[in-house]
């Protein structure tokens, strides 16, 4: 997610995963969201980072677990109008539900990200433009 891994973000998700992103009004397909995130966050001059608090895990039987935690997420990304913006999510909240697939790999089948306080978004000054 912070763009520092060569692994594909979408591979963490089950093909049938459903996601509520931070501000979407409807749920979406997990893999579509993962591809979009990588495009938004892994371009040149773009960066992001996350700090996680303690992760609580509820085991729900032999093959399912629910991870819940709060986090802070900081990103420099392209806004909808093409300008660079800095986005700081200071009170992020995450629920991720993992299930072991037929091959034994844990994959996210459902994710709900939200923020208790709206993220701070600031336009960045471009130099020499």
């Amino acid at each position, binding site marked *: 997610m912070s763009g520092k891994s060569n692994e594909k973000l979408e591979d963490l998700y089950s093909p049938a995963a*459903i996601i*509520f992103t931070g501000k979407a009004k409807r*749920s979406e397909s997990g893999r579509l969201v993962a591809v979009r995130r990588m495009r938004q966050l892994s371009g040149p001059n773009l960066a992001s980072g996350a700090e996680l608090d303690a992760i609580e895990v509820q085991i729900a039987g032999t093959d399912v677990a629910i991870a*819940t935690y709060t986090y802070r997420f900081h990103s420099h990304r392209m806004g909808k109008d093409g300008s660079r913006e800095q986005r700081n999510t200071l009170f992020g909240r995450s629920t991720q539900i993992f299930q072991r697939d037929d091959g034994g790999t844990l994959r996210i089948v459902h994710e*709900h990200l939200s923020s208790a306080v709206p993220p701070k978004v600031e336009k960045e000054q471009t130099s020499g433009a």
Partner: protein
Amino acid sequence: MEHIGKEEIRAVVQTFWNLFTAKSKSEFDQFYSPVATVFAADARRSEPARLMLVRRARELFGPGSAVGAKLATIDVQLLRSDLAIASYAFHFSVTRNLPGGKRVRVEVPFGRATQVFQRDERGILRIIHEHMSSAEPVSPQELPGA
């Protein structure tokens, strides 16, 4: 034990909201497993459901409170014969009295819910985790004459 079905989960979610808006506290509380955890819509941390239920009863189930909800399509993911996830958008509205005496109305037009249901040893579906949020910031509106 009977396998969970999608329509069964949709019916349970509808019952959950019917009891919520009717302020049927004792029946409503039974929806949650004793070990359930929740992210309430405006909370900065997750918490045990039993704490949320005490607060919800105090703030929303009193005689001066009114709660309304309208649900969009409920997606159901069946994970196992005894485990399922319901996720949906909803419009939520509440009118209530604040401790200082003010009366406020809160509209949440873009609420989002994730509820994980597990059938317990008695065959009853209970919520083991819940995450409620709003896609847009909401602010209470003070009502006149309060």
